């Protein structure tokens, strides 16, 4: 009797275990679907903003910028008398939007300028640029590369293995990028007249492992601080701000996980020198550089409205302290 009983129990147990396994698989699938949904929702929100700004008359830009500023920074933007760093970034948008910034914001056009300024050895390899996804010469591309447009920020497809790329998804994504005017993402008008192209660029490896990603905040031609970060899927995953001597600064950017122990890049001094050369003549620019391996330096991009001046600084008084370092006139 006991044996039968135990057998029955065992079978029941097996059945339950199976159910449990199935439930777990279903939950995992649900999680993935929810992530997908969240992404779609996010895309929709961005698309709505984009369309709204596209139709917004230019004389309303200041008003809209003030609205955005209040909701991101939590205090009223004073465009007449900007004091904090984030306020000054907004001021620069309206009073210092020189055509050169548009050229240097274009990830393709900026390369020519960098070549002339500091030399072609600092440029990443670009395998080509095209007007639509279907024009991309996939055959000619190496196994690993990254796809990004020249006219926007935060858009990237990292291709670790060309043969595993989902072409239909990639086409949809890329063609959507190419028909999006990034200026209307958050009223950063230096992006407006860039002719959109899709470019295939060299794959630098794993962020924080094969290369260091450093963003040099240059105020009036001088590197004031450096933000080092690890990117995962085009988004900052962990970040930390350092001073020129690679000491952790007393302020950090909000909303990014702080990882305090980034190693000092071997070629920090050289990168600072190059960033300052590139930033010469600009009141404010963030120069992004990579150190590939232990000794190679690569230019990333020039950003004239870093984080669109909408990322808070913690503690918040540093927004003002940093603002005081930036001289506008």
């Amino acid at each position, binding site marked *: 009797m006991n044996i039968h009983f135990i057998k029955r129990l065992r079978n029941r147990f097996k059945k339950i275990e199976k159910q449990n396994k199935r439930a777990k698989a279903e939950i995992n699938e*649900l999680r993935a679907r*929810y992530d997908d949904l969240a992404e779609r929702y996010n895309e929709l929100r961005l698309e709505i903003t984009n369309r709204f700004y596209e139709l917004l008359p230019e004389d309303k830009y200041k008003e809209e910028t003030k609205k955005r500023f209040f909701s991101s920074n939590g205090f009223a933007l004073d465009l007449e008398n900007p004091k904090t760093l984030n306020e000054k970034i907004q001021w620069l948008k309206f009073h210092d939007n020189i055509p050169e910034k548009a050229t240097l914001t274009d990830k393709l056009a900026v390369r020519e300028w960098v070549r002339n300024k500091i030399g072609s050895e600092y440029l990443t390899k670009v395998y080509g640029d095209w007007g639509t996804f279907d024009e991309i010469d996939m055959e000619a591309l190496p196994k690993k590369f990254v796809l990004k447009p020249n006219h926007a920020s935060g858009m990237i497809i990292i291709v670790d293995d060309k043969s595993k790329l989902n072409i239909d998804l990639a086409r949809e994504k890329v063609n959507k990028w190419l028909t999006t005017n990034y200026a209307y993402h958050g009223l950063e008008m230096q992006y407006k007249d860039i002719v959109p192209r899709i470019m295939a660029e060299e794959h630098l490896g794993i962020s924080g492992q094969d290369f260091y990603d450093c963003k040099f905040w240059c105020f009036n031609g001088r590197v004031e601080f450096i933000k080092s970060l690890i990117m995962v899927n085009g988004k900052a995953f962990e970040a930390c701000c350092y001073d020129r001597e690679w000491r952790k600064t007393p302020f950090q950017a909000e909303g990014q996980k702080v990882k305090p122990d980034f190693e000092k890049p071997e070629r920090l001094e050289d990168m600072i020198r190059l960033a300052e050369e590139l930033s010469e003549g600009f009141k404010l620019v963030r120069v992004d550089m990579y150190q590939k391996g232990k000794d190679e330096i690569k230019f990333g991009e020039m950003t004239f409205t870093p984080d669109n001046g909408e990322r808070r600084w913690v503690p918040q008084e540093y927004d003002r302290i940093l603002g005081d370092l930036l001289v506008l006139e």
Partner: protein
Amino acid sequence: MFFVERLRNRFKKIEAENKKIKAEIKELNEKHEALLGINDELALDMMYKYHELLPKERYEETMERRLLRRIGYKADVKEPKTLNEKIQWLKFNDNIPEKARLTDKLAVREWVREKLGDEYLKKIYGPWDNFDEIDMESLPEPFILKPNHGSAMTMIVKNKNEMDKDDARQKVNKWLTTNYAYNSIEMQYKYIKPKVFAEDYYGDKGKDFFEYKIFCFNGKVSFVSTAERENNVATSATIYYPDWEVTPFKTKQYPINPGEKPAVLPELISTAEILCRDFKFVRVDLYVMKDNSIKFGEMTFTPTNGEQIWDPPEYDRKLGDILKI
């Protein structure tokens, strides 16, 4: 024995837990479906608003952007070459008032009556200006409600008494306050005065009656498309030449599944050619009913809004070459 008792309790607990998880999964799935629906609805509402506010002079550029997003090539609406481009060109350069009249599902009936005769028209009930005006008494059972001024809006009512009136009112009145022109910039819909009307419900399309979408280029039938359906959702779409030979191209969306030639094919072709005569391009939809009679469906001047992905893709250009504008 205590041990066994304990085990049994543990099993029961796990079983209960499993049941709970299952219920939760079901609930989450439903929530997910609902959220997807809301997302799509918001996206559509946004596009309506955007197109409504968009200045006219930017329509062409906007259609070019849509074509790149949907089909994947840089379209040139001003110098059209592909069929999709030419449909766009016709939208903006050949939008004669006649097209607006024939797009109106009610006004078109008068014209069809003149061209073909009363027997080609389905019986209708109404029309009415809003939901509460609908004379429910006069309606057969089952019936189908649709507006005269848009596409893809229908409601099948099998039983009047079981109909959720509040839900139906909301739906119908939303149709009637929607200007379908701004769904995707199809301006022939713009000035149609919205009304709702009812038809007899003839059962399932593709089973109880058949729909033929007849593509007419320069006054001649070029090809005919017909779909198979399951639970009223298309599962395949096959395109035929007028002699019922399957075309070397299809839509990317659906597989093909060639079927039998309709008994009244010559009549379908000649009927479509009477209707398409005066237009450079139009899709004439005709129905073949159970008794093999032919009924008029609709005239569509911008099928799929000129955003069809043809397979193989080069047929977009090849079909465009046939259409003279």
